[in-house]
């Protein structure tokens, strides 16, 4: 955020006083993050759009009750996360599901391919993005929500903990497991021999 831009909290105060453009600016700032969270959790664009609308309608109606105990972003993403949970047909994944990929993650491969020095431009294309999205979609819900908020939406550990109503320690543990699982998936894609351009000399 540029220094000359008003803080969320200032915009909230203006919006509470009836300034519609202030609320519109808040929508502008946060809609992408709300949509990303909903889409990555629900996978269906139509469902994500429902959550997007529900979230900002709730925010508009509830803004007068917002006291600033949490940041506006935390408050808003909590609304979004709860709306997302309502849409998930089944309850949040039980902790035991986390164990499902544990075996995977503890099996340390003997040979590791280093694809970390490939330029991002070479790595990124539509197919890559599809692989990245599928890898996130395959995570258990409890890890997926943490990963999306922390690493994609860029929230801090404490903010993520507040949104999900879990401890900061739980955020760190789940985030690490999620990252390791995603690294495995991306490695089997990027690390595949067809992409090794090194050693051609």
């Amino acid at each position, binding site marked *: 955020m540029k220094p000359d831009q008003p803080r969320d909290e200032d915009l909230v105060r203006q919006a509470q006083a009836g300034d*519609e453009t202030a*609320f*519109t600016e808040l*929508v502008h700032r946060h*809609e*992408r*993050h709300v*949509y*990303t969270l909903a*889409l*990555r959790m629900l996978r269906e*664009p139509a469902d*994500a*759009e429902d959550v*997007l*609308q529900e979230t*900002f*309608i709730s925010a*508009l*109606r509830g803004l007068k009750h917002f006291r600033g105990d949490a940041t506006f972003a935390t408050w808003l993403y909590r609304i979004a996360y709860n709306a997302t949970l309502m849409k998930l047909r089944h309850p949040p994944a039980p902790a035991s599901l986390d164990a499902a990929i544990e075996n995977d993650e503890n099996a*340390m491969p*003997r*040979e*590791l*391919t*280093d*694809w*970390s*020095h490939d330029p*991002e431009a070479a*790595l*990124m294309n539509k197919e890559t*993005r599809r692989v*990245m999205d599928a890898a*996130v979609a395959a995570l258990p819900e409890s890890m997926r929500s943490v*990963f999306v908020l922390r*690493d*994609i*939406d*860029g929230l801090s550990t404490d903010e993520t903990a507040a949104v999900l109503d879990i401890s900061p320690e739980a955020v*760190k543990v789940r*985030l*690490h497991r999620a*990252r*390791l699982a*995603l*690294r495995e998936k*991306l*490695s089997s894609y990027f*690390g595949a021999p067809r992409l090794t351009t090194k050693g051609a000399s």
Partner: protein
Amino acid sequence: MDHITETCREIKDKLSAYLDGELETALCAEIEQHLRGCDNCRVMVDTLNKTITLYRNYGQDEVPPDAHTRLTRVLNLERLKMKIQQST
């Protein structure tokens, strides 16, 4: 390739904390010393870091323009409803 040791496993558990800058300097130094001598762990930390970077830089979803238009319309309608409710 190097042999995977107990140290490698211990380090693997701490890599996120390491990359997120949450570890004490002494522990960081210990890890870095191990990384200099262990190809496996070095590749592990580099590819993990790259994974995080790719998602940070490219993982976001944009709200489709149509969805944004509909959101604006729905919010305008909601404001109207709120005004009517207030005035009655």
